[in-house]
């Protein structure tokens, strides 16, 4: 998709860093998935890129045996406790990665166009409600599509200034009418 596919005259996009959340990387084998889902209160989605949520907990399937678990920061200890309770019967790894990434929200009518400056995927095919690991100008990200014009990027902390500044350059170019 090129910038010329859509009339962007006057279209805007905002970029903001959003408050931190609790994040965990969960690895669990097929046979123990149901137990992990029961402990978390959310069934583990099984298609790569699918999300599931219940209460304040959200899960994303990042790989065949890998899930990202997110929740408000105050829910962190509860997740650790719930998963520790099933450890003997359902071995798994639950790693707290909350501080590893910073999240940017990119939203507005020009959001999809702005994402194309750094992401090689055809993002028109990423349906709202899904989330995938991909790259943004060589930096690995988890890209959440929250709506047709709303994305979130989880960016590793050390790459965040680069990603942010590149997004700002793109935003200014779009605002200037390119």
């Amino acid at each position, binding site marked *: 998709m090129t910038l010329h596919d859509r009339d962007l005259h006057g279209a805007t996009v905002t970029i903001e860093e959003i408050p931190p959340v609790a994040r965990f990387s969960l690895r669990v084998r097929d046979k123990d998935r149901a137990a992990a889902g029961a402990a978390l209160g959310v069934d583990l989605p099984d298609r790569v890129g699918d999300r599931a949520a219940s209460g304040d907990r959200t899960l994303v399937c990042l790989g*065949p045996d890998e899930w990202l678990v997110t929740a408000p920061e105050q829910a962190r200890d509860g997740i650790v406790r719930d998963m520790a309770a099933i450890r003997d019967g359902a071995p798994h790894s639950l790693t707290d990665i909350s501080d590893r990434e910073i999240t940017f929200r990119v939203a507005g009518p020009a959001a999809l166009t702005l994402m194309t400056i750094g992401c090689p995927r055809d993002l028109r095919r990423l349906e709202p409600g899904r989330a995938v690991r991909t790259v943004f100008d060589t930096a690995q990200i988890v890209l959440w599509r929250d709506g047709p014009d709303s994305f979130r990027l989880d960016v590793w902390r050390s790459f965040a200034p680069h990603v942010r500044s590149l997004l700002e350059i793109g935003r200014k170019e779009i605002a200037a009418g390119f």
Partner: protein
Amino acid sequence: MLLIHCPYCDETLPELEFAYAGEAHIDRPADPASLSDEEWRDYLFIRSNVKGTHAERWRHIHGCARFFNALRDTVSDEFITTYPAGQARPDLTIKEAAE
């Protein structure tokens, strides 16, 4: 840019998300100490280096992170097929005979 089908994501995605990982279907010797120097050298370094259909490992490193295998034509760079790690190399003669 090449587009590569990841058998785990079941999507065809840009090459930038993937990393090449050498020739496929090379089994690590169960008992390296019993090998001669020549056999160990062959295991470590000697590759088929084919001109044509090559079975090779790829990793969807910036995606689902899984290793998988691919048959790629080293002349045209065309990906003929991809398949999960652990599966036998697909027999292309069956496919060709059917066509």
